[in-house]
């Protein structure tokens, strides 16, 4: 009974992803199932269209910048929270998940209002900075969990053996924390790469990949989006397989529900 229910739920979760593959290889010009024949033309169209490739490149660039920025700020903040003894520490720790709880549409129009005054609409780094706000909570929560598990005596031993504080952190603490850092980086990148609502407002005419997909879904009924989606699913699967080799699985909910 339990297996039947679970099996149905697994099918419900996986089937929508799987049906995109046959559609993406369809030779029809329309979303038809079963596809009338096999063809790679939607992949050819994606890779041959500069609008699609530009949007992909822009999203990769914004995602990379978001990852670096969120890791930089997040690592400092997590260290400060775990090692420091100052008032307001628990306030910061609880408040850090606020950007997850605040509806994205509300945050989006708030940042849109600010950016349009500053003339930042359409700038890729503007989107990256806004995405950093969304990614930061995930990064901090994952790193806090990692830092709490870390035995601080290892770092103290390194210092006792003559390493400076920065050297001890760099050669002992960060390598041990590496799985948490990888998880945090993955979360930050995906948060930015998949983000649509904020980008819809502040990316202007310079579309990100999700914005390009959204517009395409609304305006045309053809399977290019299926091809793009299939590529994304394959890449995410590859990253997940890679991730299981790095021990600590990246789960936002584990992080959220301490």
């Amino acid at each position, binding site marked *: 009974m339990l297996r039947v229910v679970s099996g149905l739920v697994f099918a419900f979760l996986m089937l929508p992803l799987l049906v995109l593959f046959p559609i993406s290889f369809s030779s029809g010009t329309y979303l038809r199932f079963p596809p009338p024949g096999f063809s790679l033309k939607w992949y050819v169209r994606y890779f041959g269209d500069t609008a699609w490739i530009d949007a992909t490149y822009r999203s990769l660039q914004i995602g990379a910048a978001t990852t670096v920025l969120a890791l930089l700020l997040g690592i400092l903040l997590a260290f400060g929270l775990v090692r420091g003894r100052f008032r307001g520490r628990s306030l910061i720790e609880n408040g850090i998940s606020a950007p997850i709880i605040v509806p994205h549409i509300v945050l989006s129009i708030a940042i849109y209002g600010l950016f349009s005054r500053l003339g930042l609409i359409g700038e890729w780094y503007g989107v990256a*900075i806004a995405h950093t706000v969304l990614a930061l909570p995930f990064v901090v929560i994952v790193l806090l969990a990692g830092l709490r598990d870390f035995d601080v005596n290892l770092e103290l031993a390194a210092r006792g053996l003559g390493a*400076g504080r920065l050297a001890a952190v760099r050669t002992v603490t960060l390598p041990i924390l590496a799985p948490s850092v990888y998880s945090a980086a993955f979360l930050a990148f995906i948060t930015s790469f998949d983000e649509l609502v904020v980008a819809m407002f502040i990316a202007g005419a310079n579309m990100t990949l999700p914005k390009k997909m959204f517009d395409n879904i609304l305006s045309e009924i053809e399977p290019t989006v299926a091809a793009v989606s299939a590529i994304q699913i394959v890449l995410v699967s590859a990253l*997940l397989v890679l991730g299981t080799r790095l021990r600590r699985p990246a789960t936002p909910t584990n992080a959220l529900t301490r």
Partner: protein
Amino acid sequence: MTLSSAASAPPLRAAEARRSSAFPLGALALTWPALLLLLLLFVLPLARLFALSFEGGNLEWYEKALTGGLYTTILLRTFEIAAIVTLCCLLIGYPVAFLLATTTPAWRALGFAFVMLPLWTSVLVRTYAWMVLLGRNGIINRLLIDSGLLEQPLPMLNSKMAVILGMVHVMLPFMILPIYSALTRIDPDLPKAARGLGASTPRIVMTIYLPLTLRGIVAGVTLVFVVSLGFYITPALLGGGKVLMFAMVIEQQVREFLAWNFAGALSVILLAVTLLAFTVLNQGVARHLGD
């Protein structure tokens, strides 16, 4: 700054190092860059939106939002959809979490892959997949017609049901994972002992599993409900403009009408409702559990 100046410090004895590792002010400084970002791009923009909604010194925008029925109806519908989605996720998520927690490691790994892969696939891709499945000429209609079960395609897309299906698909992993993690913390000897003492399966579920996983259930319910309240992409695409949720109204006011004051008031209302739901679900129940 604090770190680099300390980098050339002479070796310290452990006790000294321990004391200085609690560097109170230095640690505070480490939090500044992130807090500055949050202040400039989170607190201030939201405060400005808040201020805009009260511009003119009166409550006219709130009056417009809360009287006349249109926006309160949409708010209620948003609540209703979020509640249905949360309930569906709980009902189908709990058995899956239970299976994952009790099966063999190999099956668990496979099951986790089925939960994590959709979780990491973008919401947009998954919503598009549901459009492909549910559309007039979509896969489900095609299969039903080709097999002779249907004459005319069923209008499944652009309906509340489609929105709920899509949202459950997006939110389900967020229900399964916290419940799974609560289930794994249960001492496996407890249900065994109950079974040995003659308890039936329903009794074991009611007296052991449900109470001991309540925290995980609350965490999942809170997350799914609160995030569902602010959904935009899935209802916009699967509802086809027929199923309006609150986030869509806010987007419309800003993009189509540039009605910043009114959008500000609607945002404050959505935010207040979200925070209220979060506080009630999370804090209220946590206190009840003696947390």
